[in-house]
């Protein structure tokens, strides 16, 4: 806690994301993803201070962190080539099979609640090796037994080309690890101030529960300095409102 300011949840999640991106060479951040963006930029800062390979970050909607010159298809082309190592997805609903629903609730097509749509999920979820699911609200409304519409499935039948898939799910209560073999989530850690019981109460799906569940590691002073310094400055380019709210950073004058 560099300056005594308490750790904000966004900082905890970004730090957890950075852990999940350790060793990744190319991470892309899609739309409406300020916290994943901050986590990816933190991973990049950490990688530049380590002996391993540098992490390259592409943020859709950014000028500074976007080197695409082949149109909007380039992200998907690179993913098809195995050149995007990590990506982030979310869902209006996420279920215990890691299926995600970005379309709406109830009976499709006249869904009573309609969300925006599936974006690139029905492709990137299959192709990107490390997909991190992030959904702030952890409730039985969001984490359901079975999604009403599968925008993209968490796993595929044998024989279906699927080098990619989920690795983890981060919420405002905990971190789940995805177990690819078993096709189930495992409760990896619970965020400070929350309990396993709370997670169990608020989760609509079954998951594996170890005998002891650690508390999610909070970012140390070094990480907080990175988050509140270079990461905040960079994320403000794409998400000025977020940067202002979380890091009290006003956008730079043009």
């Amino acid at each position, binding site marked *: 806690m560099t300056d005594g300011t308490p750790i904000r949840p966004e900082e905890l999640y970004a730090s957890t994301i950075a852990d999940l991106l350790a060793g990744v060479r190319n991470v892309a951040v899609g*739309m*409406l993803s300020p916290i994943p963006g901050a986590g990816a930029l933190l991973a990049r800062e950490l990688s530049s201070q380590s002996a391993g390979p540098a992490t390259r970050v592409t943020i*859709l*909607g950014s000028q500074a962190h976007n080197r*695409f*010159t*082949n*149109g*909007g*298809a380039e992200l*998907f082309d690179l993913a*098809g080539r195995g050149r995007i190592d990590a990506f982030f997805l979310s869902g209006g609903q996420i279920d215990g099979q890691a299926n995600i629903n*970005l*379309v*709406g609730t109830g009976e*499709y*097509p*006249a*869904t*009573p*609640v*309609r*969300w*925006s*749509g*599936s*974006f*690139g*999920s*029905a*492709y*990137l*979820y*299959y*192709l990107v090796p490390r997909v991190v699911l992030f959904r702030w609200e952890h409730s039985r409304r969001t984490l359901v037994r079975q999604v009403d*519409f*599968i*925008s*993209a*499935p968490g796993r*595929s*039948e044998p*024989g*279906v*080309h699927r080098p990619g898939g989920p690795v983890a799910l981060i919420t405002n209560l905990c971190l789940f690890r995805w177990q690819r073999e078993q096709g189930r989530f495992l409760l990896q850690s619970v965020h400070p101030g929350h309990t396993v019981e709370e997670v169990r109460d608020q989760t609509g799906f079954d998951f594996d529960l170890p005998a002891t569940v650690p508390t999610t590691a909070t970012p140390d002073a070094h990480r907080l300095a990175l988050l509140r310094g270079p990461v905040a400055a960079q994320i403000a380019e794409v998400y000025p*409102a977020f940067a202002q709210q979380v890091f009290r950073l006003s956008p730079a004058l043009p």
Partner: protein
Amino acid sequence: MTRTTPSPTVDDLAALVPDGASVTVHKGDEPDVPMALGLALIRRGVRGLHIVTLPTAAYPASGMLVDLLIGAGCVASVETSGISLHELGPAPRFSAAVKAGTLKVLDATCPAVYAALQAGAKGQPFAPLRGLIGSDLLRHRPDWKVIDNPVAAPGTGPDPIVVLPALNADVAIFHAARADAEGNVWIGRDRDRLLAAHAADTVLVTVEERVAGNFFADEALAAGTIPAALITALAVVPGGCWPMALDGSCDLDAVRQYQQAARSDDGFADHLRRALAGQAVAA
């Protein structure tokens, strides 16, 4: 060549979009949103459009454009990977129309829209795409087929893959910064507008300004140019992509006001009346 005919207006362009046409619009992270042309389409009373978003309309201005067209009753169906007002939240008329069942939605995923349009731009009948299998998107798209990969190595077992029919829109509409004297349009590194121009039969473009000279005389500019041969009609409409500005920024307050108004039928009708009146005064 000297121009003997007056330059077309947005209304001239809108007149080239027939009822029932399929129309591509762009995702709106560039100042490519043809808002003035969209309002001209509403004014002309176009009906039954099939809107294809390339691949989404989920930035504030693009979401607002599509939402306006839906709310004004111009749209029968959309093919999209996402429609919203971005960080401001859902697109109200879109959500209401889906709930009411008055709008047919062909839900897609971004690379599928790209792949289908790329096949269309090449004049090839289909494009293969990984992913999709096991999703409800595929289940609800009878036009998408699953085949066994015909070039898989022998003895490796079945390899199912989706093939998407080529997509050629009747009309592409978009805004751009500038055109030159020959009618070439500069888009920089936003190749999506070039893709749309190749894939559509009619290409209608509004630009901020028309400049002297020829972009092809400068190899740097040529690299980011749509050749005039691909463009059916071009209108100079300064501010034609409002609420976006040419620097890519967006007047979020204007979109918020729209969003508030569009939450109710009456509010939307009132907003639309004022928007059309305001534009008529400005034009």
